[in-house]
């Protein structure tokens, strides 16, 4: 702001509008905007740098390939292989539900949306879901998955359904990802100009053929972006994992069937591992917590970078 009012040297080209003609209050407002923007950047950057430093200090390749185990010292308690596998499983389960449901909802809301009343209800349901804290979803999940009818999705002993399993956590986590998938895909569909749809109708194509063969392919970058945003949210969620995945650090399968047993059983994810190993957690091993947090952060940052790439690609091929 020091250059305000300084006379432009002759011949120099002013590239941008000078704020010297602005009212004082506008200039103060602009200054505030700059200050707050820089402040937020500083906060974000310091979180990332702090975790990177802590992570680099504590991450050992061995941590990534050993399972957690009981022990008295940090060298005896193993790594976080199981939580990483757990994160992968819940992400896959949640997205396996959220993607088809989310894409279908987005297509219906964007292209069909009749009757209008039902569309409004669906829309506010999705919005409500987006605003619901995940701990509330977790609580609701315990009621659903402890019901005897869904006993086959977790373990049962003496007629009591345990209600905590990868299935339970994945299903409720899909509700966390769903609003993101719906809104991203819907925005992608609505960004397609009307004349593109009409061009398809105008060569005798039905609405369903247009949706399937023109609109969904056109919205593919948005679908991928929605999936990445959804995964980012799912693997970062802690409340549903703590409440619905059970408290075991290791994958504890149920029954003899290999994969199904694991999914019906309990385990942990990187977030619950961090939660338990944080200085305030049950196990209090901050070094392990930092190492796991570092891994989680790297995954989430990679997903965000992927989102950027696809958002740019989506802009590249556009109609004039």
């Amino acid at each position, binding site marked *: 702001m020091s250059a305000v009012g300084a006379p432009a040297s002759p011949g120099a080209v002013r590239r941008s509008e000078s704020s010297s003609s602005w009212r004082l209050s506008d200039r103060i407002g602009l200054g505030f905007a700059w200050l707050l923007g820089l402040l937020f950047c500083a906060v974000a950057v310091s979180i990332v740098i702090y975790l990177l430093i802590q992570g680099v200090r504590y991450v050992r390749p061995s941590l990534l390939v050993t399972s957690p185990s009981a022990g008295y010292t940090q060298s005896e308690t193993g790594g976080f292989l199981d939580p990483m596998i757990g994160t992968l499983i819940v992400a896959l389960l949640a997205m396996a539900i959220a993607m088809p449901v989310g894409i279908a909802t987005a297509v219906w809301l964007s292209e069909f949306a009749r009757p209008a009343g039902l569309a409004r209800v669906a829309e506010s349901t999705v919005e409500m879901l987006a605003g619901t804290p995940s701990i509330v979803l977790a609580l609701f999940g315990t009621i659903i998955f402890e019901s005897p009818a869904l006993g086959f999705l977790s373990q049962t002993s003496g007629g009591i359904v345990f209600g905590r399993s990868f299935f339970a956590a994945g299903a409720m986590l899909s509700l966390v990802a769903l609003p993101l998938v719906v809104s991203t895909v819907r925005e992608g569909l609505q960004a397609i100009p009307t*004349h593109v749809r009409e*061009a398809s109708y*105008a060569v*005798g194509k039905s609405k369903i053929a247009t949706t*399937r063969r023109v609109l969904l392919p056109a919205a593919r970058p948005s679908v991928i972006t929605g999936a990445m945003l959804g995964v980012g949210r799912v693997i970062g969620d802690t409340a549903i994992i703590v409440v619905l995945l059970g408290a075991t650090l290791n994958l504890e399968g149920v029954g003899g069937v290999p994969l199904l047993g694991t999914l019906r059983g309990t385990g942990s994810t990187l977030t619950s591992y961090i939660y338990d190993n944080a200085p305030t957690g049950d196990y209090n091993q901050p070094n392990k917590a930092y190492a796991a947090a570092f891994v989680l952060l790297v995954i989430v940052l990679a997903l965000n970078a992927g989102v950027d790439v696809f958002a740019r690609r989506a802009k590249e091929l556009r*109609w*004039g």
Partner: protein
Amino acid sequence: MGLSNPPPVRWLTGSAAPAATLREPQIAGQHGNGNGRSPAHGFVATPRRVAPASFAIDRMQVEDLSVSYGSKLAVDSVSFPIRQGEVLALIGPSGCGKTTLLRSLNRLTELTRTASLTGRITLDGIDIAAMEPTSLRRRVTMVFQQPNPFPMSVFDNVAYVLREQARRRPKRAALRAAVHEALARAGLLDEVSDNLDHPALRLSGGQQQRLCIARALAADPEVLLLDEPCSALDPQSTKVIEDLIVKLREEVAVVIVTHNLQQAYRIADHVAFMYLGELVEYGGVKGIFGAAREARTREYVSGAFG
């Protein structure tokens, strides 16, 4: 290239006596006389690049058509014929109902929820209201103002039209000949034959628009509707597309909406001048631009308004 789709004989004979609903001035004799008389009323005419139509067969009849959006009347009891062998240009200022009229010819107006339509449009004597919209739109296809190839390869853009609804079949090899033919009819094959697999959205604007024409031709329509197809293009691309339109008029009946009066003069055989939803005048191109009967037409083509 010839007629890919020979019309039934009864329409050949029928064309000798145009429908009684026509408000066509008797200017047919002016068509071929080529006396070089420059049009009056200040319209600066470039020489027509186009030889007069050698034949004309009635394909569509618009009879007393009115279209309204809610309570707003967009097209007010309009009647005229659409002929194969000729290019029909719809001209008029913005908001005069040209595009609405064009869209009602293949029932795209139905996509607008508030639109309602009275009157009758026939295609080869059959009321289009009685047809399945998808089969009507395969016979009366449309090209839009903005080039809008689908986000797929050049080949698939055309193959999409040839395949049945949402199917993936028939496969590529079975469609190759038909895709090549459509691209050739649109004058695009030579430019894209080496990269049929490239994304269509990477083509230049003029090529994209010709791809859209190829797509519209792939359905083998009787009537081709063009909604200001050159308004987003540069003069070179415009010339290529105009030449193409004139070439196509023998294979399909062509209706073009245009804001560009010179373009209408260059390529049209008949011109319909619309104003505020009404069809003010329908007639041969020399008549409209040289000796219009209606004062409003004379004023419009001389640039007094619009």
